[in-house]
């Protein structure tokens, strides 16, 4: 006969198995237990990953994952960017046996050597979980090659706007010296114009949809049975979609050809593939891409407006249908949710004054500076250089903020002005309402170095006799 102890043990075991099963269940499968996985988190997740922290399998792709699998997970999301920015410290540098002694001091073959997750007590900006003097491990002799660096602390290499471990596209010496004499601001500067319409009319994948005709409200092809369609048709007829010959069914057609009322990002992707790809890897769309519910301002760590807490982030959140007004998406959509100081100060900034003039038609196209101008910049498409697209993954140019220098700031400002501005956190917080003070020495350092190298003269001063660093 079974004793009551054995019965209790069996019940306890059964409940434990059920509980563990529920914890391990993908959070979207059983909404009641959507947050149950938080119990499994070993520590606060970094700001870069907290949105997807309940999708454990996004990084831990197999139980008891080894370092190779974790590395694969890092590269799956970050590899494209590292490759695109020509990572200054690629993995191959450290897997080369000739650097084995260096790897023994700092094993930079693995992302998690420097970016350990769930360890807030040792994690600083950029998810760095090492002391900030990590450059010393390999560059302890930099003072002999670079006399200007002789007395600098190794904790200052990457925090003063001089170096970035991965992305030095705007910080390398030749680039610095080439921009030595940049003026602070070019008041006649213009941001690039988008050319999506021109691209769509010639691209084979979408030219059957986009046409060189401007549709009017009487041209719409929504079913007659569609309810309350008047305002929708009016908004659409004023949109860039109507201006590019894109009718209702072009978006609202399901796979079997029938009318589909509710759309998601897949409908947009047909004509906006790079935008959707960017969105899905961005702070706004990364939850969707790993199978979680869409991001909501209430889930954010940044300060958000209370009245926006309930919103869910999809394409429609910023590009309100059916007007798809990009001016709205570029400013009002952002500050409708964000209420950190930088966002709140935007409307007091010189950038906003330019934006107002541009929207009012008093400034030339491309002269206004919106939130999107800096955080969703217009650049030559990564894979099609003839197409100017709006980057929809703000991470590409967010932090460290030196990533913004080339695609954003240099459109209007000189490099020296930009380096000083981005290094001044109080100026960033105030949304650049004043002029930066010169604090970053990198252009001077590069200039002195170039001029002093074995008595050679820098290419931009062929007739100079002696070094004359910028004052």
């Amino acid at each position: 006969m079974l004793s009551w102890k054995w019965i209790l043990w069996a019940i306890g075991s059964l409940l434990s198995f059920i509980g563990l099963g529920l914890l391990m269940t993908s959070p979207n499968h059983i909404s009641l237990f959507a947050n149950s996985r938080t119990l499994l988190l070993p520590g606060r997740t970094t700001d870069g990953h907290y949105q997807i922290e309940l999708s454990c399998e996004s990084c831990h792709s197999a139980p008891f994952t080894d370092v190779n699998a974790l590395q694969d997970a890092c590269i799956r999301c970050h590899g494209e960017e590292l490759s695109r920015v020509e990572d200054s410290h690629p993995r191959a540098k450290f897997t080369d046996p000739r650097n084995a002694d260096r790897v023994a001091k700092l094993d930079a073959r693995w992302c998690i050597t420097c970016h350990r997750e769930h360890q807030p007590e040792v994690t600083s900006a950029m998810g760095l979980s090492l002391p900030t003097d990590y450059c010393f491990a390999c560059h302890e002799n930099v003072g002999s090659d670079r006399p200007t660096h002789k007395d600098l602390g190794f904790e200052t290499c990457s925090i003063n706007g001089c170096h970035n471990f991965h992305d030095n596209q705007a910080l390398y010496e030749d680039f610095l010296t080439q921009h030595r004499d940049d003026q602070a601001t070019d008041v006649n500067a213009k941001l690039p114009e988008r050319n999506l319409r021109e691209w769509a009319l010639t691209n084979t994948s979408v030219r059957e949809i986009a046409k060189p005709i401007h549709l009017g409200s009487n041209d719409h092809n929504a079913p007659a049975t569609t309810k309350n369609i008047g305002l929708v048709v009016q908004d659409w007829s004023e949109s860039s979609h109507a201006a590019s010959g894109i009718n209702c069914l072009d978006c609202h057609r399901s796979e079997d050809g029938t009318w589909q009322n509710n759309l998601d990002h897949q409908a947009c992707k047909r004509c906006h593939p790079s935008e959707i790809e960017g969105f899905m890897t961005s702070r706004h769309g990364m939850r969707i891409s790993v199978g979680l519910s869409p991001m909501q301002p209430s889930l954010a760590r940044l300060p958000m407006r209370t009245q926006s807490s309930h919103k869910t982030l999809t394409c429609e959140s910023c590009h309100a249908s059916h007007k798809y007004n990009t001016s709205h998406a570029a400013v009002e959509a952002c500050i409708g949710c964000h209420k950190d100081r930088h966002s709140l100060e935007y409307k007091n900034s010189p950038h906003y004054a330019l934006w107002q003039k541009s929207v009012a038609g008093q400034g030339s196209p491309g002269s206004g500076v919106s939130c999107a101008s800096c955080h969703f910049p217009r650049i030559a498409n990564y894979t099609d250089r003839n197409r100017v697209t709006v980057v929809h993954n703000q991470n590409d140019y967010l932090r460290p903020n030196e990533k913004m220098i080339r695609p954003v700031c240099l459109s209007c400002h000189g490099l020296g002005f930009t380096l000083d501005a981005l290094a001044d956190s109080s100026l960033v917080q105030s949304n650049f309402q004043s002029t930066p003070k010169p604090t970053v020495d990198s252009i001077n350092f590069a200039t002195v170095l170039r001029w002093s190298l074995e008595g050679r003269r820098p290419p931009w001063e062929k007739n100079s006799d002696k070094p004359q660093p910028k004052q």
Partner: protein
Amino acid sequence: MNIYAQRVPALSIVACCAAASACSSPKSTSGSISPKLMADALHAVMESDRTVYTKFVVNRLTKEEKVIEATEHWKDESTLPLPAQMFRMGAEMASAKQLGFTYSLLSKWPINKQNTPRTEVEKVGLDFVAEHKGENYYAEEVLGDAKYFTAVYADTAVAEACISCHNDHPDSPREDFVLNEVMGGVVIRIAR
């Protein structure tokens, strides 16, 4: 560390036999390919491809026909990658495949200081190939916890573009390279 430095082709057959008997080269299927033979074969491909790129792409287009430049910041300046950069990019791509070998381009007078010889075999090997024209240097070394067969091959200035670039570069410690001079060496490592 330096185990043996051999003159080619005098001792190459002996070396092949000796290495073949001890070799368990990572991707060798029959076990009959010695590390030395594998290194020589790899180098033949590298040297040929790089010479073709240097002579028939870079030198022809930049020096003879003058239709485009080859510069260090080729992406920013819409120019051709320098031959050394092409070589290095290939080395990184090959390394990512983790096939048990790596290669690099080193010099006693590099433009980038990171490409200065660091290990004892690299230092001795670069001196050897500079002093013994037409010969290679072979050795075994232990780096970290792993053992490697290491081969060093002379890197010679095969075109005007090689010497003009190195002589004119502000970071170059030398400005007197001449055509056909040994400017450095290709180092190939095969995991043992």
